[in-house]
C-alpha cells in the first residue's frame, strides 16, 4: 500500500470531508492561501473555494467562537488553532462555551465542531509554541480530546471526529507530520478506542501521540537486548476514555508505565494511574511509573529540549525499574 505522511493524511481527510458534506468548512489563520501554518490545508482553497476555506484575522477567540456559533445552527466547522498554546487566547470559548452548552441547555443543542491543532516540543519552537496541553482539555467535561499517533490513525480519527455531533479537539503532534505509514486511499473511520500497537506479556506501556513511537522504540530495544516483551497501548482518545483495553492489558502484564510528553505534574498520566490502580489493584505487582517531561516550560536550547523530552532511554529505564519492582513483589 502507498505510504503517506500524517500531514498528507490529514489533508486527505479534509478533502474527503469537504467533498462529502457541504456543511463542512474550515477557517483559521493562514490556512487558505498559505495552506496553513501546520501545512495541512494545502489545496483546499483551490478545490473548494474561499467561502468554505477562510483565512481569518489573528483572533483566536473569534475563530473558536464563530466555530461554536456556526455549529449550533447545523454547520460542521473544522477550525484550526495553529498551535495548541493558543488555547490561551481562546480558552473561554472552549471551557465555557463549546464544552458546556449542550449540557447547560439541557441537551437541546448539538455542536459538530472540530478544533484542529498542533502540539509538542522537539523542534526548537520555545516555551510558547511547544506545549502539550491535553490534560487541561481532558479535564473539561463536554469536549472530546483525540490525539493520533500516526498517519493512518489520523485520517480515520479525523473523519470520525468530523462526523461527531460534539465538539472535538483534534491534536496533531508537530513531530509526526512528516512520518509516513501505510494509509488506504478510500475513506474510513476509526473509533475512539485505544489500540494495542504492540503486544507483550511483561509490562504495559500506556501512551499516546508522539510518545507511541518512542515507546515502540523502547519496546523494540528491550526485546532485542533483554528479551523483555512490552505491550504498547495507544490511548488515541482521552475523551471518551475507554479504559477496558488498558485494564485488560495491565491485568495480563501486572505492571504498567505511563508515557506522555506533557509535564508530569497534573498530566493525564495521573488519571490513567488512578483508574488502573483502582481496577487492577490485586493484579498489580509494582507501582505504576510515569515517564513525562519535567515540570518546567519547554526550553529552547537543543540540549535542554532534548533532555526535557521523554525518550527511548528514559522509557527503557522506567520499564526496567518497574520490572525489578515486579520481580521483588512476585
Amino acid at each position, binding site marked *: 500500500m502507498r505510504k503517506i505522511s500524517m500531514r*498528507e493524511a490529514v*489533508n486527505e481527510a479534509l*478533502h*474527503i470531508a*469537504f*467533498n*462529502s*458534506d457541504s456543511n463542512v*468548512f474550515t477557517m483559521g489563520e493562514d490556512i487558505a492561501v498559505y495552506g496553513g501554518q501546520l501545512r495541512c490545508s*494545502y*489545496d483546499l482553497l*483551490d*478545490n473548494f473555494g474561499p*467561502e*468554505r476555506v*477562510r483565512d*481569518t*484575522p489573528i*483572533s483566536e*477567540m*473569534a475563530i*473558536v*467562537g*464563530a466555530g*461554536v*456559533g*456556526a455549529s*449550533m*445552527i*447545523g*454547520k*460542521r*466547522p473544522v477550525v484550526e488553532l495553529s498551535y495548541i498554546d493558543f488555547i490561551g487566547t481562546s480558552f*473561554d*470559548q472552549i471551557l*465555557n*462555551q463549546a464544552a458546556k*452548552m*449542550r449540557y*447547560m*441547555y*439541557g*441537551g*437541546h*443543542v*448539538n455542536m*459538530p465542531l472540530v478544533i484542529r491543532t498542533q502540539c509538542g516540543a522537539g523542534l526548537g519552537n520555545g516555551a510558547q509554541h511547544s506545549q502539550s496541553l491535553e490534560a487541561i482539555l481532558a479535564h473539561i*467535561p*463536554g469536549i*472530546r480530546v483525540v490525539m493520533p499517533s500516526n498517519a493512518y490513525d489520523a485520517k480515520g480519527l479525523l473523519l*470520525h471526529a*468530523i*462526523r*461527531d*455531533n*460534539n465538539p472535538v479537539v483534534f491534536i496533531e503532534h508537530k513531530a509526526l507530520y512528516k512520518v509516513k505509514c501505510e494509509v488506504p*486511499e478510500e*475513506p474510513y*473511520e476509526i473509533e475512539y478506542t485505544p489500540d494495542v500497537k504492540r503486544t507483550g506479556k511483561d509490562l504495559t506501556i500506556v501512551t499516546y501521540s508522539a510518545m507511541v513511537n518512542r515507546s515502540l522504540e523502547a519496546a523494540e530495544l528491550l526485546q532485542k537486548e533483554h528479551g523483555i516483551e512490552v505491550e504498547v497501548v495507544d490511548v488515541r482518545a482521552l475523551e*471518551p476514555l475507554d479504559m477496558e483495553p488498558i485494564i485488560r492489558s495491565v491485568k495480563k502484564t501486572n505492571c504498567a508505565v505511563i508515557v506522555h510528553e506533557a509535564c508530569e505534574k497534573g498530566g493525564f498520566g495521573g488519571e490513567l494511574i488512578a483508574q488502573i490502580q483502582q481496577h487492577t489493584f490485586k493484579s498489580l505487582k509494582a507501582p505504576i511509573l510515569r515517564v513525562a517531561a519535567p515540570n518546567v516550560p519547554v526550553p529552547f536550547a537543543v540540549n535542554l529540549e532534548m533532555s526535557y523530552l521523554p525518550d527511548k532511554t528514559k522509557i527503557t529505564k522506567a520499564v526496567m525499574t518497574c520490572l525489578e519492582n515486579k520481580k521483588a513483589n512476585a
Partner: protein
Amino acid sequence: MNKEKLLDLYRMMVQIREFENECIELAKSNATRAAVHTYIGEEAIAAGVCAHMSNQDYITSTHRGHGHCIAKGADLEKMFAELLGREGGYCKGKGGSMHIADLATGNLGANGIVGGGIPLAVGAALGIQLDNKKNFVVSFFGDGAANEGSFHEALNMASIWSLPVIFVCENNEYGISTHVSKSTNIQNIAIRAMSYGIKGVVVDGNNILEVYEETRKAVDDVVSGQGPVLLEMKTYRMSGHYFGDNQNYRTKDEVNQWKEKDPILRCEQILQKEYDLTEEDLLTIRKNIRTEVLAASEKAKLQPEPMIEDLTGDLFDQKFADIEWKSFVKAQGKG
C-alpha cells in the same frame, strides 16, 4: 406605526416587565437561587429589536437575558420552570436564569460570560452566509461587555466578511457597580464601529419607536450584504444588578430620574396621546398580561424537579451524523 403594531410592542414590553417583577418575587423567597438579573427599564430594546425577527433569525443573549428570550417568543412557563430548576424548564433545570436557550425560536442562548455570546453570533451569521440564506443574527450585550476582547475580535471578523449580524449594545450605564464613564473614555460606544469600518448608530433605547425604526434600517443593511451594524441603545437598568444588590454605587435620585424615562411609561404616553387609548384600556392590558404571567409562574411551581438519574445525561450527543464519505481524487501534480 399602526396601532396594532405598537400595541404588540407595548404588550411585549409589559410582558417582560411582569415576568421580571414575578422573578423578583420568586427571588425574595430564594426560589430562583443565586443571582437573577432583571431587565427592568430596558424592555423597549428586546421588544423593538426582536419584532423584526423570525424564528430563523438568531439571537445571542446575556446574563440579563429574560427580555430577549421572551421577545423572541419563548414560553413563559418553560422559562419560569427553568428559573425554578424544574424538569420542564428550557434546559431541564440544568441551566438556570443565566442559561436559557431556545433553538425553536432562534435563541442561541443566554450566557453567563460577559461578552461570551458575541463571537457565537458571528459564527451563526457566517453559517447563514454560507447557506446563502436571507436571515440575520442579533447579538445583545452590555456596555461593560464592550470592553471584553471578544467584542473586538467578533466585530472585526463580522466586518471583513460582511456578515449579517447586528450588534446591539445595551448601554444601561453600569457594569455591576461601575459606571460606563469609569470603564470607558468615550461618549458613545457606537463610535467603536469605526474601528471596524462598519456603521454605528446611537439609539434612544427607552423609546420603542426609535428602537424599532433604527433596527429596521439595520436589518435592511445587514440582510442586503452591506455588513454588520453596531447599534448602541442608550438605556438604564432601573433595578439593581441582580435582586439583592445594595446599589451603593448610585443615588436614589439618579434612579428616580430615569424612572421618568421608563420605556413602558413613554409608550403608554404615546398610545394615549396619538392612538386614543385610555388609561383604562392600558390598565386592562397590563392586568391581563399580569394574570397570564402569574399563571405561568404558578404552573411552573407545580412542576417536578429533575430526576437525579438525569444528572449525567445530555453531555454528549451519542449519535453521529449521517454522512457518507466520498473519496476526493486530487488533480494531478497538486499538493
